[in-house]
């Protein structure tokens, strides 16, 4: 029903071999050089994608009065570091960073490990009910987790976990997408012969997982880990419901709190927004290529 890419997505598609004998129009899709219009459109979209981020930094470097003038500022002012410092303290961002890193780290690690072993079972092991269970996993991707927030909130309230990080961590420990992603990867990346050979040598299933599946899955595990980390880091609704700005906020709760406080100092809000986004943007500028490859690899095709 589904397949993944066989080639690394960051590369362009391979050249057709008989290129010269075909009309020019035959070479669509990855082999034809883009014309100037394509570059113009791409540059426009790139500017559109990056401008709000750049402007966040510009606004964060000004003071509130300057933001309430026309025309709005187009270049950096001198208040960046003082604004960042005030926002950092006002929004309790130090604690928020620690909390979010912890939550996102635990959830990414758990999702990656559980998804890998479940994905391996679905990809390579035969067992009764495999097809039905896999359908169930795909089905659970269709159930939005947000619709479960009310009983979860009741549970958390009853356990007295409001403002506690475990309330945020527990529902984020599994990911149907993760299971699916790892299954797709392992179907291709893990030759049956290796598992058979290990079996013939007498390795138990757990040994196979530990010595063969985990090493083979490492690249996909890294990508899934990054994707999960980004998602958990940016998660808003559930942390917003169970955490308050004063007790154990995550970065998103803290940043949103800046915007919802009654101190309408926009430059400080922008400084907070910038601080909340910066770590992920740094991660992106370093691992962007891998993350892009991962998203493209996880793309579902029936």
């Amino acid at each position, binding site marked *: 029903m589904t397949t993944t890419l066989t080639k690394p997505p960051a590369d362009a598609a391979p050249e057709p071999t008989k290129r010269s004998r075909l009309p020019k129009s035959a070479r*669509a899709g990855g082999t034809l050089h883009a014309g100037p219009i394509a570059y113009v459109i791409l540059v426009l979209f790139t500017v559109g*994608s990056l401008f*709000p981020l750049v402007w966040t930094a510009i606004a964060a470097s000004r003071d509130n009065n300057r933001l309430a003038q026309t025309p709005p500022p187009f270049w950096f002012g001198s208040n960046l570091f003082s604004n960042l410092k005030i926002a950092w303290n006002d929004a309790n961002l130090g604690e928020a960073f620690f909390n979010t890193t912890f939550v996102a780290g635990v959830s990414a690690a758990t999702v990656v490990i559980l998804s890998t072993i479940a994905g391996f*079972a*679905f990809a390579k092991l035969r067992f009764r009910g495999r097809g039905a269970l896999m359908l169930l996993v795909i089905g659970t991707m269709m159930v939005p*987790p947000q619709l479960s927030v009310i009983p979860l*909130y009741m549970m958390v309230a009853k356990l007295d976990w409001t403002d506690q990080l475990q309330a945020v961590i527990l529902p984020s420990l599994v990911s149907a997408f993760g299971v699916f992603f790892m299954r797709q990867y392992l179907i291709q990346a893990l030759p049956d012969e290796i598992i058979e050979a290990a079996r013939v040598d007498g390795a*138990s299933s757990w040994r196979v997982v530990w010595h063969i599946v985990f090493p083979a899955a490492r690249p996909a595990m890294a990508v899934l880990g990054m994707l999960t980390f980004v998602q958990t880091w940016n998660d808003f609704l559930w942390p917003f419901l169970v955490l308050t700005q004063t007790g154990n906020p995550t970065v998103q709760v803290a940043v949103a709190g800046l915007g919802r406080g009654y101190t309408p100092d926009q430059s400080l809000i922008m400084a907070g927004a910038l601080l909340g986004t910066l770590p*992920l943007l740094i991660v992106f500028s370093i691992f962007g290529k891998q993350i892009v490859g991962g998203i493209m690899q996880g793309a*579902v095709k029936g």
Partner: protein
Amino acid sequence: MSTRHDTAAPPEKEGGAAPAARGGSAPPTEAEARRRLRLSRRWQRDVRWSPYAFVSPFFVLFIAFGLFPLIYTGWASLHTVELTAPTDMDWVGMRNYTRIFDDDFFWNAAKNTLTIGVISTVPQLAMAMGLAHILNYKLRASTFYRVAMLAPYATSIAAASLVFVLLFGRDYGMINWVLDAVGLDKIDWQNDKWPSQIAVSTIIIWRWTGYNALIYLAAMQAIPQDLYESAALDGASRWRQFIHVTLPSLRPTILFTVVVSTIGASQVFGEPLLFDANKGASGGAEHQFQTLGLYLYEQGWVNQHLGRASAIAWTMFLILIIIGIVNYVISRRLRASS
């Protein structure tokens, strides 16, 4: 559950061959035979049950934090439950449902969710398709564009919404300044109905277009090259190739992104919450951009009626199931016709 490497052999039907017993060709002693039998049983148990052990953590956690709460939401929706005492539940039958269906704000929120969903999803996916098509050409610095387009995906709802609040500001916002500069009237992006919905949709479009473009690009790159070659030899123009080769091949991917975007659109919450200048959960002074997600939050956490909020959640769930069925039917029709 470690197994001795040197002796355990997979059963014959698994295709494995038993390794030679230690000591060469000497017949195994009775104790040795029993030991082998034991190991072989353990082996069979391992082969039979370990797949379930591997998939069970997912299902256990999913049942605990996904399925059970969803069903319990349905149960709670038939009760009066207040936020202040979430464990006291009084049976009221369908009253929560009739109450919300009688509430104009529910229908308003449902309509807003639909319109915001359409004006955020349709342009988003159309632009993503166009972008993917361009990215599929041979490009200089193609990785750079891809990463840059994905940067909004790394930006949180909170940060993105706050920036767009400023950009869409009525008096000093960048967008109105541009409109003014080109001689158009300023627009009250926060208080007028359609402008505010467009503004909220813009945040969503900004965050997700690049992501969807990458998904389409991945699907495009998997289309076999010879399909294009034979189409070209038949004299198809590039546009006709796109219509007759690319789009049909992308059908499953398009359906997938439509489903995912629909689910996302039905849940929109953070963007309208933070876009509200009055800092409430009503989605603007006149509820002009209150979505179902925001309405749920308002009923449950502002008005403290968890039972009614549960009824909203279940209504949303039922709507999603209907959308899912419609999608399924359409995709079957499409598959049958192709």
